[in-house]
């Protein structure tokens, strides 16, 4: 019987030092898949190697049970990466059959990620799967399994909101801006000071429709340098806030020790811009914008702590959604596993039926050849033979299907016994999968 096993490590259980030792480069993945193919111990494999996790999914059919299949993987990793079996046991997790399926579904749905609901992992799993398919690693069972994993991931994304809500400061700023302005098209963002975070936020805003960028800096040269990245307008400021009259969104991150934007001057600015909304983001520590600014009508101020609180509350919300997503995973994994079991015994059932029918047909032909019966008599005998075949096969087939449906682990042995006792030629490529 086919055993689906996986071994892996992730940021949840292992430190970076171990994960990097276990990591596979693209070339190593191809090499390893080739090794599996040649060794004949493992029929199918997919290797997923990202910065947060390294996982090997494999299907083995020439083994007694899942533990034996797992042992093959442990030995392989130990040999390939020169890691002691003891430390492998300590820093990796092993999954068998149903648990493997469940684990892959969880990973693909981003339930096992550092940030639950992040979207990268789906692409990473897809890449790993494609690479393996090209290298001849994934066969019928893993094809089926991974395709299902992608559709489960998609279902979870559409039925839950684990991927909703900004979980980074810069995205939170964009979402807040969307709560204030009815559209970001045609809006102007002013970056005051410089810094990675403010540039990243401005970048997200621009890709969401903001069309004008003003970059203000104490030194004009630095402003020019940043402005070039956004095709924006550079300017040097000196305590004069009049450049904010055109700014709908202000991102401030200077090193100034005191407040740069104070309530009174900003109130003037707001009057001059006819009280159109202004969204101020203060990511500087110490702060650049006087907190009282938020008392001005239509001026909305968020500092770094506020943004972090928004992110934290979104993360909490995702955690709640994750519980629902886990239910979907469990239910889908169980269903997939059951289907897989049935598909795995189908070739044997088919072969047995065929054998019985062939024997009956041959014997009938021999019998008809020797005797002279009327057409009616021949037809009667033929249908009686069919009935006998059907009745003889009824109980074994029913019991086999029952064993599968009950999740009875013995059905593997049943299948093996049937194949051996009746000398069935079951080509194990599961072509009907």
């Amino acid at each position: 019987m086919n055993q689906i096993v996986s071994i892996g490590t992730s940021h949840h259980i292992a430190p970076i030092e171990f994960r990097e030792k276990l990591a596979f480069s693209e070339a190593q993945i191809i090499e390893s898949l080739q090794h599996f193919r040649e060794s004949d111990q493992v029929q199918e494999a997919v290797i997923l190697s990202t910065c947060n996790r390294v996982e090997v999914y494999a299907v083995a059919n020439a083994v007694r049970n899942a533990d034996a299949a797992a042992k093959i993987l442990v030995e392989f990793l130990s040999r390939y990466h020169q890691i002691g079996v003891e430390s492998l046991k300590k820093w990796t997790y092993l999954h068998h059959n149903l648990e493997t399926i469940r684990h892959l579904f969880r990973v693909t749905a981003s339930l096992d990620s550092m940030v639950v609901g992040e979207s990268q992992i789906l692409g990473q799993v897809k890449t790993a799967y494609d690479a393996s398919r090209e290298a001849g690693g994934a066969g019928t069972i893993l094809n089926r399994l991974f395709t299902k994993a992608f559709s489960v991931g998609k279902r979870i994304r559409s039925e839950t909101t684990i991927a909703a809500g900004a979980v980074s400061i810069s995205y939170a700023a964009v979402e807040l801006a969307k709560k204030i302005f009815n559209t970001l098209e045609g809006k102007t963002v002013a970056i005051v000071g410089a810094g990675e975070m403010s540039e990243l936020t401005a970048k997200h805003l621009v890709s969401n429709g903001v069309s004008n960028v003003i970059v203000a800096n104490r030194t004009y040269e630095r402003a020019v340098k940043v402005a070039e990245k956004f095709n924006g307008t550079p300017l040097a400021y000196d305590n004069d806030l009049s450049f904010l009259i055109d700014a709908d969104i202000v991102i401030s991150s200077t090193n100034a020790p005191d407040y740069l934007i104070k309530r009174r001057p900003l109130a003037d600015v707001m009057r001059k811009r006819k009280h159109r909304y202004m969204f101020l983001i203060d990511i500087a520590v110490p702060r650049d914008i006087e907190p009282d600014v938020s008392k001005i009508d239509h001026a909305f101020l968020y500092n770094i702590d506020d943004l972090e609180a928004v992110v934290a509350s979104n993360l909490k919300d995702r955690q709640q959604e994750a519980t629902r997503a886990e239910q979907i995973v469990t239910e889908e994994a169980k269903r997939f596993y059951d289907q897989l079991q049935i598909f795995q015994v189908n070739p044997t059932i088919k072969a047995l039926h065929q054998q019985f029918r062939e024997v009956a047909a041959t014997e009938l032909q021999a019998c008809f050849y020797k005797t002279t019966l009327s057409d009616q008599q021949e037809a009667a005998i033929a249908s009686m033979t069919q009935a006998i075949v059907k009745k003889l096969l009824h109980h074994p087939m029913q019991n086999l299907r029952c064993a599968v449906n009950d999740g009875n682990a013995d059905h593997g042995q049943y299948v093996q016994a049937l194949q051996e006792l009746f000398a069935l030629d079951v080509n194990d490529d599961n072509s009907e999968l």
Partner: protein
Amino acid sequence: MINFLFLVTLLIYLAASIFQTLSLAISSRTEAAVIRPTIERIAFWGTGIGFAFLTLFIALWWLQQGHFPMTHWTDSTAFFAWAITLIYLIIVRLTHLRALGSFVMPVAFIAILISYSFATHTAALPEPLRNYWLLAHTTLIFLAYAAFIAAFGFGLMYLMTERKIRKKTDALLDNLLPSLGTSDGLGYRCTILGVILLTMGVIVGSLWTQYIRDVPWRWLDAKVISTFVTWFIYVAQIGLRQFWGWHGRRAAYTAIIGFVAVLCTYVGVDLFLDSMHTYR
């Protein structure tokens, strides 16, 4: 039987109002994803069916009385609710902003409740008033009221969203209410629509007086004065916005003040002052 059906309409409106408000009360994303679609569906279908029933009733009364039914509180408030629902449905059709229903549907429900409590009353309409002037005049005025009530709803939506943004932590948790800019802009459009309709209604009304000599016309009629006050509030809001940038928060407050003025004009004047416009 007819009375019973009217009670059904009333209950449908009650259900639609409750479900609309419930949908607004949802604060977590999980609940929003799980139950909001159902709640919204019930609320929206409730609104649609209630509106259809109400239309039938108004048509029925029209046939019974032989003229546009606008003689008593029964007819008047039912028509008021009808106008509110119509404007709401048009706005949903154009903007897909169902959240507005949470604010306007309860108003429509209360109107029908008043209508129901007067259900057995009828009043005879004086002969000179039975004509299409009545239809044009009251329809325009009531649609204007409905537009103002929609503007009021957008004003409340604006204030709720603003409060959330200022409160910070859960500013992003709910995605039902539109952005400040959207609420403000739509509220403004509703206000303009309301002013246009009200102006037309008043003009039609004053032309109408030229044709009826039997009913004495008084400029100092309480309803007329109150209507002018209401009209002035909204026109002032539009002017202040155009020239002084009075939008957003201030516009939202003005929409609430305007709503109170509308209620005073419609209900208050009748109850406490003498007017030739009374429904009795």
